[in-house]
């Protein structure tokens, strides 16, 4: 059932992942052959605009996509075990214990009718066989560790009595309470105030140091990935279009889409020669319910040539560990504006 991999191998190895949905308008392939790896203790960013499939990729790792969807692909190896082959019962044993998740909306992601303490205790009772009282003490301690003052008192309170930032702290405490090996964080800071975003991000990274958990950080915010990630995957229309270390992606983006993303970030001091207006990527994301021959980005791409609309590009290594899904990877001119 499971293929034993060497100890030094990746903690998570996703290969050829597909996610299909049946909709009223017909089948939609939301994730189209994603390869992704996370090393133990690594922070990996998964970046892209809304609807590019990054959340579905993240959810399919813990097999929590909507029931109407189907996950396919070669394998999702976690610690050498193929999650695609596991039964639901075995999968449940991993969720919350070895793989846990933090979601975007801290308000709606916590149950309004259960106290914070109850919700934090649940994984401990379930996975570590603690009784509720013991788990409650641990919960209060964990709540203190994520920087919530008067943790004991807060444990008795309900989600609506906490601020957005506090709730997300509680979510993180809940996700890390069983010391998981992998934390899947789906836009953990998006719904928060900008000032709180930085705090939550810092907290997640600090706890990662303490617990040694690897993090897959899903976000559309390039600032967040630049600050926190070791490596980055950029997704577009259900595919990974570029992969590399944070330094490589920000220093030498090798896919036109990544370049477009970088240019659409507002800057206080724009580099000399750049236009007055903030740049944006023209056009919209293609519909995924129609066949897409060629490069999925070609209709919006400033570098597109005729072959781009018919011939799907292969993934090319620009340098070791830096891959791009573009016919012209490594040949894009750097510095100057596209034609």
């Amino acid at each position, binding site marked *: 059932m499971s293929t034993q991999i060497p100890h030094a191998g990746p903690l998570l190895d996703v290969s050829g992942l597909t996610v299909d949905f049946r909709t009223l308008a017909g089948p939609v392939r939301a994730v189209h052959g994603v390869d992704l790896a996370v090393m133990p203790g690594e922070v990996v960013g998964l970046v892209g605009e809304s609807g590019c499939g990054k959340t579905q990729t993240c959810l399919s790792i*813990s097999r*929590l996509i909507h029931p109407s969807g189907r996950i396919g692909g070669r394998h999702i190896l976690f610690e050498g075990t193929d999650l695609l082959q596991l039964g639901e019962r075995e999968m*449940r*044993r*991993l*969720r*919350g*214990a070895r793989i*846990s*998740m933090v*979601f975007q*909306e801290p308000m*709606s*992601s*916590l*149950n*309004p*009718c*259960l*106290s914070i303490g109850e919700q934090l205790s*649940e*994984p401990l009772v*379930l*996975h570590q066989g603690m009784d509720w009282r013991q788990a409650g003490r641990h919960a209060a301690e964990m709540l203190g560790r994520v920087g919530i003052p008067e943790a004991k008192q807060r444990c008795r309170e*309900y989600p*609506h009595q906490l601020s957005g930032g506090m709730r997300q702290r509680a*979510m993180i405490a*809940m996700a890390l309470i069983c010391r998981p090996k992998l934390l899947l964080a789906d836009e953990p800071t998006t719904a928060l105030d900008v000032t709180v975003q930085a705090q939550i991000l810092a907290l997640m990274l600090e706890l990662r140091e303490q617990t040694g958990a690897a993090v897959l950080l899903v976000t559309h915010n390039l600032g967040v990935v630049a600050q926190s990630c070791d490596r980055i995957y950029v997704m577009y229309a259900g595919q990974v279009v570029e992969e590399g270390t944070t330094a490589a992606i920000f220093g030498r983006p090798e896919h036109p889409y990544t370049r477009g993303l970088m240019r659409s970030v507002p800057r206080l001091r724009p580099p000399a020669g750049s236009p007055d207006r903030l740049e944006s990527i023209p056009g919209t994301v293609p519909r995924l319910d129609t066949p897409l021959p060629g490069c999925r980005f070609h209709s919006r791409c400033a570098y597109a040539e005729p072959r781009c609309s018919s011939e799907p590009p292969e993934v090319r290594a620009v340098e070791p560990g830096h891959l791009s899904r573009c016919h012209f990877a490594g040949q894009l001119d750097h510095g100057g504006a596209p034609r």
Partner: protein
Amino acid sequence: MNAYLSYTIRRLVLTVPILWGVFTVTFILFFIVPGDPARLIMGQHRDPAMQAAMQKQWGLDQPKHVQYWGFLKKMVVLDFGRSFTTKREVTQSILQRLPATAVLGLPSLTLGLLLGVAAGLWSAMRANRAVDNTIRFVTFSLVSIPFFLLAICLQWLFGQHLRILPISGYINGPWGWLHLVLPVFAMTLGSFAGLTRLTRTAVLEVLTEDYIRTAKAKGLPELVVVVRHALRNAMIPLVTNLSVSVAGALTGAFFVEAVFAWPGIGLLAVDAINNRDFPVIMGTVMFGAVLFVIADIVGDLLTACVDPRVALK
């Protein structure tokens, strides 16, 4: 607890204008709807002198506003006067009939609630599959069939066709409970169908919430997710609608008691309406209104118990 008590007292005070409104509307309706009680009692032997005498005796000859105030003043001390037809004290009649209605209403409401929540939950957990489709078909049919028709069908099936249950009446004695079976069954079906549909919708809605995904991400088994995380939230619209359920049961009691000749408050009211028996109509309507208002307050108190976001003010 203190908050609950002061809330209840405040709500009870607010009940007074509600009941006054119910009284006024009932009073107006009685005089708008055609039909003179004295004329009805005399039947075919019409005697104008006697009709006038009866109207004088009941005070129906006085100006409307005098009647209104006279009745309102007596009602404050729970005195509805005597029935036009039976000459019995209305309050006495209601209290005497109360056990019969309670013995019918309480078991069917409880059964309907338990079965309805269970079926609704099951239906929602198996949404759009065979079980769910069957439950939906059955409950939708039940809420669509008029109550009295359903009751008559049950009488035919169990009383006439299978001959295993008495079709109507109320008897004291060792086998008296047999008479209870069909009316309770009929009333249970009514509340069961409504509550199943309500529970199914509420649970399905809650199951799409983000915190259900969070619960699953913790590794909780489906049953724990549904019972601990979904049902509790889905109960909120149910307890909030408690007054509606009670009102439904009350309406059901009217039909069921009439069809099964069950001597409860429903039958008392139906008879009173047929006879234009104003004091009894007013008595039973006010009784229903009080029950409804109490159910509403209890529903709100329960909502505050279930939902920590609700603060009683």
